[in-house]
């Protein structure tokens, strides 16, 4: 497990944080030694919220503004952080500039939605022979059995989208899906005419009636099914279920996050972090702006801006920001060139990702693109590097390997090293 580029190596060596530096350096020197030591990094964040910008947002129109460039239409505004400017359509977020680390030098080779979505969720390009676990899956797996990990509600929740499952780590580590943040999760209440007592009678009848089958087949899949079922029933009966109920929030809060599905999702995410959920993904869909890029991007930013900024403010107020890593990222950027439909096409060569909270050094732009936004000009960051940074902050050794079902060792990230300059 070695850093992929001299740049990240240089970045690593510039670190100042003592123990972190030691850990990172040990990976540099000899990966085998690092693995043998197997000491997971001290977690800086205990929860992670991913704001998933589905479709791939235009970097130039959001977090990497190019005022004056031939293909730019939006102006840039200053943020609270000196030298950090973002799109004029993100004024509320600009107030939190000191909390944002804007990586402007993201780069990948995956320009297809499905493949890039997989890459961004798992740190790997799709490979038909192995189903890589998503970041959420790793975190659930790796924190199981640790203090505070046991909960009646799922540790990994995806709001408004299917996310990516835990791959070979198994179903028990996969996401629990909330299809609509405006109502409780689907099917958590018994059917009409079924009260708690009747529900309990039904479960008892089922268990009694299937006993013969269980005894005869002796198949471990049946134990697995029972475990998942018990998890589902615990969720139904959990007092923490109320964390999914955004209607309990004051009107002012709902208004602050914006009256959108995404705004409600971010509000739910905050409630879930408070309830102890480890990984929450909230989807804002619609960034695939091949046509009519500017109007659509503007509308999307009008949803992103209040939701993202209120989330940061709320987490800060509740003293949760330092322990919650927030990432805002999509599958790739969009072309600097504007196409015939006034749209922008897929662009994996250079794009932006934003990190905040849990151990992130805010108030900075990391890396840069060229004047027209068409290529990375400074400190390229790969998706595995981004992953390694996030997992390190969450207390996972990015080089840790697990043996996949076909016997191949799979690391949490391959060829990824954390970027020290992003970490406080």
């Amino acid at each position, binding site marked *: 497990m070695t850093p992929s580029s001299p740049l990240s190596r240089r970045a690593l060596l510039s670190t100042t944080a003592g123990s972190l530096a030691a850990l990172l350096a040990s990976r540099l020197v000899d990966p085998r030694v690092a693995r043998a030591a197997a000491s997971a990094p001290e977690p800086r964040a205990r929860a992670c919220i991913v704001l998933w910008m589905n479709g791939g947002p235009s970097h130039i129109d959001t977090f990497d503004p190019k005022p004056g460039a031939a293909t730019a239409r939006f102006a840039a505004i200053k943020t609270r952080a000196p030298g950090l400017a973002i799109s004029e359509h993100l004024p509320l977020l600009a107030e939190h500039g000191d909390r944002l680390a804007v990586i402007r030098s993201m780069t990948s080779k995956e320009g297809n939605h499905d493949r890039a979505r997989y890459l961004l969720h798992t740190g790997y390009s799709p490979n*038909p022979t192995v189903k890589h676990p998503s970041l959420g899956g790793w975190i659930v797996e790796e924190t199981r059995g640790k203090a505070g990990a046991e909960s009646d509600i799922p540790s990994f929740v995806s709001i408004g989208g299917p996310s990516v499952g835990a791959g070979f780590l198994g179903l028990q580590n996969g996401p629990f899906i909330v299809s609509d943040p405006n109502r409780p999760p689907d099917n958590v209440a018994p059917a009409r*005419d079924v009260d708690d007592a*009747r529900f309990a009678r039904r479960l008892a009848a089922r268990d009694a009636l299937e006993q013969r089958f269980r005894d005869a087949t002796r198949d471990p899949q049946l134990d697995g*099914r029972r475990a998942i079922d018990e998890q589902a029933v615990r969720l139904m009966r959990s007092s923490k279920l109320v964390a999914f109920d955004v209607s309990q929030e004051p009107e002012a809060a709902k208004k602050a996050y914006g009256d959108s599905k995404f705004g409600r999702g971010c509000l739910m995410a905050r409630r879930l972090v408070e309830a102890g959920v480890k990984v929450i993904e909230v989807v804002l869909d619609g960034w*695939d702006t091949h046509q009519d890029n500017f109007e659509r991007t503007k509308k999307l930013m009008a949803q992103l801006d209040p939701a993202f900024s209120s989330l940061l403010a709320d987490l800060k107020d509740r003293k949760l920001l330092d322990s919650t890593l927030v990432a805002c990222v999509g599958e790739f950027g969009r072309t600097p060139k504007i196409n015939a439909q006034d749209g922008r096409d897929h662009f994996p060569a250079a794009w932006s990702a934003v990190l905040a909270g849990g151990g992130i050094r805010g108030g900075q732009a990391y890396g840069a693109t060229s004047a027209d936004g068409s290529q990375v000009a400074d400190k390229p960051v790969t998706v595995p590097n981004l992953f390694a940074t996030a997992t390190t902050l969450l207390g996972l050794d990015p080089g840790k390997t697990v043996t996949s079902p076909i016997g191949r060792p799979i690391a949490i990230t391959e060829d990824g090293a954390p970027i020290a300059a992003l970490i406080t």
Partner: protein
Amino acid sequence: MDGTSNVVTMPGMSKTHLALVTALAFAAACGSRTVARSPAPLPSPIARPPAAPLLDSAAIDREVRAAWTKARITPAKDADDATFLRRATLDLTGRIPTEAAVTAFLADPSKDKRGKAVDALLASPAYADHFTNVWDRILLGRDARQNLVDRVAFRKWLHDAFAKDTRYDRLVFDLITATGRNSVGGRPGRDPAAHRAEVDDDDDAPIHGAVNWFLKYQGNLPDLAGATSRVFLGVQIQCAECHDHKTEAWKTADFQSFTACFARTRVERIEKGKVTGVRRVEVKDTSRPLRPPKRMDVPDWASAPPRALDGTDFSQSPNRRRALAEWMIAPKNPWFAREIVNRTWAQMLGRGFFEPVDDLRASNPTTLPDLLARLERDFVASGYDLKHLLRVIALSEAYQRAAEAPAAPREDGLDEELWSHFQITRMGADELLDSLASATRLGERLDRLGEAEAERGRFALRRQFAFAFDVDEDGDHHDEFDGTVSQALWLMNGQLVNRASSALPASALGEILASPGDDASKVRSMYLRTLSREPSAGETARVLAVVHGARPGDRRAAWEDVFWAILDSSEFLFNH
């Protein structure tokens, strides 16, 4: 995000993707230099009349039994008749048997009734329904939501092929070489009947549903090539996309050459501008290189010589896809028959000769390679007859073992590897939906609404279903309904199962309760409909204790509880 529809795309994601733009730009650049669509005379391997099949199930039994003896394995006992019928009905028609079918089968005294039952299942219309679902899942998978893909039209093509007993080599040949229109346009979910049309109403141009598979890849030819090699040849050459394969002989250049076989097929727009639903396009082959659009890097495969996996060169071929398909299905192709035999065996027995089912590289250990080779030869000799293959497997001893794992499984795993007992598997999403419909009369109720309405109803059900069942990438078998928390909640508390288990007058339970006969006969009927077997005396007593233990006013509710309990039991949810 709309994760519920399978054709109509997510808002904002439905627009032309870059790859599509690429394909369309290719098309624009090429004008109309297409190869005329000929009526496609069959290449020689297909035209040959089938020879007489060589194998019967006894030949399989001899080899498997010898392996059991050698490994000192005591196989599980023979599955009883009821279990066999349920298993075969699920595996061959994708749903559980009806109460009438179970009763008739159990009452039939003839010795060869299992063979007769298998023949009847293979001859039933549900056979085509089931294998349409199976291949839809393998080929389009769950991520085919682009606005170029008309799943209804694709399924119609598959269904026609299975209903007509199309030879497997012909099926694959047609898929690989398909040209023509993808769709009649519009939203397939709204009007599924229109999407099964043969021609486009606008100008009578023929619709060829098979092209939707090509379109799924949106111009991403490496993925298309990788899937072709993996699904039909069991060769995971895509590992060589980025680097030479580590354990096999495949080089990156081999992969590029294989990909180049698809590089002269283009997608031509029928309608311009914004569309709602599926965009109508036409897939055509050309004989000249497609010109890449400006500002795009020219991919390496664009200039690679088109070659098969064994190096056969198609550079001189006027139609590369056709040349590739002919090479793939030729009887001397060492991979083609092996892959489908293994896949089919795994579909039936839960585990293939090699696993994963689509990875036949030499370094992947193969169980009973001689038997696999015999089945391959037999399959080719039978004229690539899928029903023959299914029948031979279904009547083998290995397939008919009870699903009873040994009390002490062997540490070396040889018992499982040699199919000493039947591997239980969860029903797939389609199987579960169809089985629920069969057990609860839901299907009949839908059918009474008329075809278009019934199709719409099924679509709505499927959509309800899809959100909870739609988490992962496309996988090959049995992994859709894999039992997540969301799915467990759906089964316990969702509308479908609860309605299905209600005692409303037109429902299955309502009908059972209204039937003459004592309560024990009602329990029997319930078991036959759901678990496809008679209840034991102990089970009947247990159910009656629940029902009779309830206050008279709550009896109906108690019956519902029992029906619910059976539908949510593992014995119902698994194929065993």
